[in-house]
């Protein structure tokens, strides 16, 4: 009896590993080994031609001595996150709230709003380059003559605006699901207590949505810190490095510069990961600290 049970246990364990192994092998290589590998590379000098040379913290020192990082990539990235995350969150919340009213054509609106989100980042970037060209449609409609993407004062804002535009559809759907999860009886209770629409929104809807807001902001922060595709396609970091972000700089150091700096780029990637981690934790504290409703 005992023998057969332990034999069954062993065969279950073998089955378990057989079931997870296809995923586990690839996951181990490209997530776990990759992460350790990145940390190792960040302590080396590596240009693809010779095997990596250990140089301790030199890579990190070079990152923090680099002008392009200190004066462009770092402030640009924070500026991008600080502007894009709140705007895309508020915008998608407003859209979801409007959508949650008992209005007609809701399904049509929902479908249409999601369109910019299904379009690939490259395609939407190519379209925006053309719309915001000097003789492009935007200037034609507004009768302006600004060279949007070649002007360091405007290029980054066009990219920000585009990304707020494209992500709002997805985030709106997440908020909409959250809004529909709020039980109608809570609203009824508020109505009986005489709360008006504005009060209901700020004292019922927002607190009830806090977990969803936390999720949307977290996803937004992690995504915005890593913005790359749109910058690569639309401006390649220019004009005058005004759109160079940390992820673009990592790419530039590791793959584009004439002298490849994989070690230094890895050091920057580790720094970026730590920044994202710190901001996520901080923001979690802020959202949870601001009210007692969040129970997660």
């Amino acid at each position, binding site marked *: 009896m005992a023998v057969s049970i332990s034999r069954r246990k062993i065969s279950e*364990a073998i*089955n*378990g*590993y057989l*079931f*997870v192994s*296809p*995923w586990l*092998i*690839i*996951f181990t*290589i*490209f*997530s776990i080994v*990759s*992460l350790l590998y*990145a940390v190792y*590379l960040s302590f080396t000098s590596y240009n*693809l031609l010779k095997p990596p040379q250990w140089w301790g913290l030199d890579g990190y020192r070079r990152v923090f001595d680099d002008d392009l990082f200190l004066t462009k990539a770092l402030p640009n990235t924070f500026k991008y996150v600080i502007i894009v995350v709140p705007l895309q969150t508020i915008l998608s919340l407003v*859209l979801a709230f409007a959508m949650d*009213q008992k*209005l007609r054509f809701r399904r049509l*609106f*929902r*479908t249409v*709003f*999601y369109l*910019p989100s*299904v*379009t*690939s*980042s*490259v*395609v*939407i970037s*190519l*379209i925006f380059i*053309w*719309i915001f060209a000097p003789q*492009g449609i935007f200037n034609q409609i507004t009768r302006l003559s600004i060279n949007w993407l070649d002007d360091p004062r405007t290029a980054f804002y066009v990219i920000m605006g585009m990304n707020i*535009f494209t992500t709002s559809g997805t985030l709106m*759907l*997440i908020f909409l*699901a*959250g809004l529909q999860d709020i039980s109608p009886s809570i609203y009824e209770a508020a109505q009986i207590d005489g709360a008006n629409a504005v009060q209901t929104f700020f004292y019922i809807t927002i607190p009830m949505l806090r977990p*969803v807001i*936390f*999720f949307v902001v*977290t996803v937004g922060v992690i995504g915005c810190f*890593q913005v*790359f*595709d749109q910058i*690569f396609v639309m401006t390649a970091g220019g004009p005058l490095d005004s759109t160079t972000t940390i*992820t673009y700089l*990592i790419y530039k150091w590791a*793959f584009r510069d004439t002298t490849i700096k994989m070690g230094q780029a*890895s050091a920057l*990637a580790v720094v*970026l990961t730590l920044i994202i981690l710190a901001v*996520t934790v901080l923001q979690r504290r802020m959202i949870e600290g601001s009210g007692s409703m969040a129970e997660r």
Partner: protein
Amino acid sequence: MTVSSLSRSGVNQSAILLDRIRKGIFYAILIFWTVLSVAPLYFTLVFSLKPIADAYTPPIWWPTPFTLANYETILKTFDLFPRWVINSVNISIIVTLFRVLFCAMAGYAFARIEFPLKKLLFNLLLISMMMPGVVTLIPSFLIIGPGLIRGGISLGSLTIPTGFNLIDTPWGVILPGVADAFGVFMMTQFYKSFPKELEEAAMMDGSGRWGTFFRIVLPISQTQLLTLALLTFQGAWNNFMWPLLVLRSPENFTLPIGLQWFRGEYYTLYSVVLAGSLFNTLPILIIFFVFQRYFIRSIASTGSKEG
């Protein structure tokens, strides 16, 4: 009595008026955003149907003069375009099939089978979901490429490669894409919430874990698998950064990489770029319309269940 009922009807009237204003504002917001959402794709369509020389010429609302020349260029003259479409289709389908199968298998094991180190592995999975993708970019590139040492390490007559040597091949794009933490997490949650009875009956009948999985579990989880498949396909189809690093020769490009490359090589042919953009957008749009409720479910579920 009468006074209060009178004032109440007054309140009602102003409440109705207020409600109308409120609804009006909401409609205005929704219609404004509808116009904005449709505009870029609409303009793209219009100008893809205008001559190349008219890429910046009004009218902007209607394709006059009308021509299909840009589409002819894509389909006939410039034969790399069809290749890119085929490459994109192949890569996206293979990634989707493998990822969905692997995620379902792993998710099932995490939900139902007891094996050593299960908890640890699942926690690693959860941690990796919080990890930004950029940090593994360079190592993944090196692993897919020649690795740390070109030509590998030689041990006598034996050479051990330090990487997969898959640069500039479709498999280099596919391989890291077939394992995904979120997919496994999603399937695990699904199987955990699923009643065990059906499987147990099948196990009693003598079909082992594998028979049960392929004959009972997979068919039951169709909806969930389709949701994951759509999410994966969309991601693979639109993926840019990873194929950009892996693929080198134009005939191996996927459509997004090809479009970006084409724009750089033939800057003056922007109408062709626009027509090509629609080739990238249209398939995913059709899939989206057909499977809309699965898309919406999958996105809605990302927010409410975890985070």
